[in-house]
């Protein structure tokens, strides 16, 4: 088992009032199974709370999950909070129930990638790995 050297650290967060966290947990577990260290911050967090936790934990990327339709509001808020704390270099990925027409809007706001229920786990892992490297 490799013990030395860098391990990629990811924060998985659920901003807003959406309490459906099975997807977030599923991603967290898959990342763990692929050698990532995952900090899960639980449901119903504010954008600011997620950003501050990401900084304190020195994560390489943040994954946000939302299934309730508030992604256009909340994902950019997290990015703004990271910027506010001088941590705009931490990449943010979004996932959940996200209509196709919203994807370009999110990307415009700086979300690096968007995943929906059809996305394969391999693709998700590869994207996280790519952002960390």
């Amino acid at each position: 088992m490799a013990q030395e050297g860098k391990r990629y650290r990811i924060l998985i967060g659920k901003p807003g009032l959406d309490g459906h966290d099975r997807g977030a947990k599923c991603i967290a577990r898959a990342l763990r199974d692929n050698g990532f260290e995952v900090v899960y911050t639980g449901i119903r967090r504010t954008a600011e709370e997620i950003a501050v936790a990401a900084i304190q934990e020195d994560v390489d990327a943040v994954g946000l999950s939302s299934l309730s339709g508030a992604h256009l509001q909340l994902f950019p808020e997290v990015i703004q909070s990271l910027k506010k704390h001088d941590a705009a270099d931490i990449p943010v990925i979004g996932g959940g129930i996200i209509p196709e027409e919203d994807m370009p809007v999110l990307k415009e706001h700086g979300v690096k990638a968007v995943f929906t229920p059809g996305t394969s786990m391999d693709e998700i892992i590869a994207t996280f790995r790519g952002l960390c490297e």
Partner: protein
Amino acid sequence: MRLLPLFGAFVNSRQTSDVGCRRSEDEAGDQKSDFRKYNIADPQLILTAQPVRQGYALGMRMDIEQIKRGIESKNSRALAKAISLVEDGAEEADQLLASLDASRIESSAVIGITGAPGAGKSTLTDKLVAVCRERGKRVGVIAIDPSSPISGGAIHGDRIRMMQHALDQDVVVRSMATRGRLGGLCAAAGAASRIMASAGCDPIIIETVGVGQSEMDIIRIADVTALVSAPGLGDDIQALKAGLLEVADLMVVNKADKPGAEMLAMELNEIARAKGRQVMMTVAAQGQGVSELLDAMLEIFETKRASGQRDQQRAECRNMEVVDWGLEMLRPYLYAQSLEQDQKTGGDPRIRAKEIVDRLFPASTW
């Protein structure tokens, strides 16, 4: 029908875990070739030949000087980067550790919270933080979770219980994974606590992984260790077996409002009284008994400090940490050497290990 995609994802994650297995074998191979790369023929050289992570710092937006200054000025990003440098074995780590504020490290109390999984360690830690904040103290928390032995990954969930402090700049929380180390701690826990102390945190609370009957590394590294138990986690024979009972400074019966708590407290009291230890009752979820617990722990800290016991304990802990780091640094070399040995002759692993160590440190040199 709605369950189908979820199930699909689960199957996927199982498949990827197999990929994880293969990957770790590849890594082992890489490690070996790494050592070839360093061209270590002379065993004496290995003491300076750690796996180097050059350029890691270049990827960050902070250089080592910024990180050092940031720790001084309590910048949380710098603090987090500093811990990562040590955790990842980066080249700059030594320079950083050498620059820490010794007087702050000297004066800050390191508190250990350990106990069985589900005893309520995270919740108790969260409430201890709340009490510290009421008293105007800046607190550091190191929450340790196990790494997967297969993939090397980890899931940290302790923060979920501590999110009420998320926006408080004077609460520094860091999740760390054991990264292959046994004993309930990670190799960098000691260094992380010194970095936090240097950044003005006092006390520093270290929450171990959920431990069983023998993982007690925490008592070395913490000035005061509380062992948390709760009713319904096991029978009294489990408690008798547990070496932890003998070494903890204090025992806590958490979930004291649950049936069986009195009974558990009585049993623990019998062991505790013989050793001159206290048993305290808490209901962490409601914050009951937490302030008293913190008082008791800080009192033990002060008593140990006044008697010189704490200094003695810390000195011993440093020595053990030196040994741990030494072994950690030797590990890849030892592994590479064992691969080099003639596999066909077999030989018992103990004999093979002795052969390598004898070559490294010939009996004449010590």
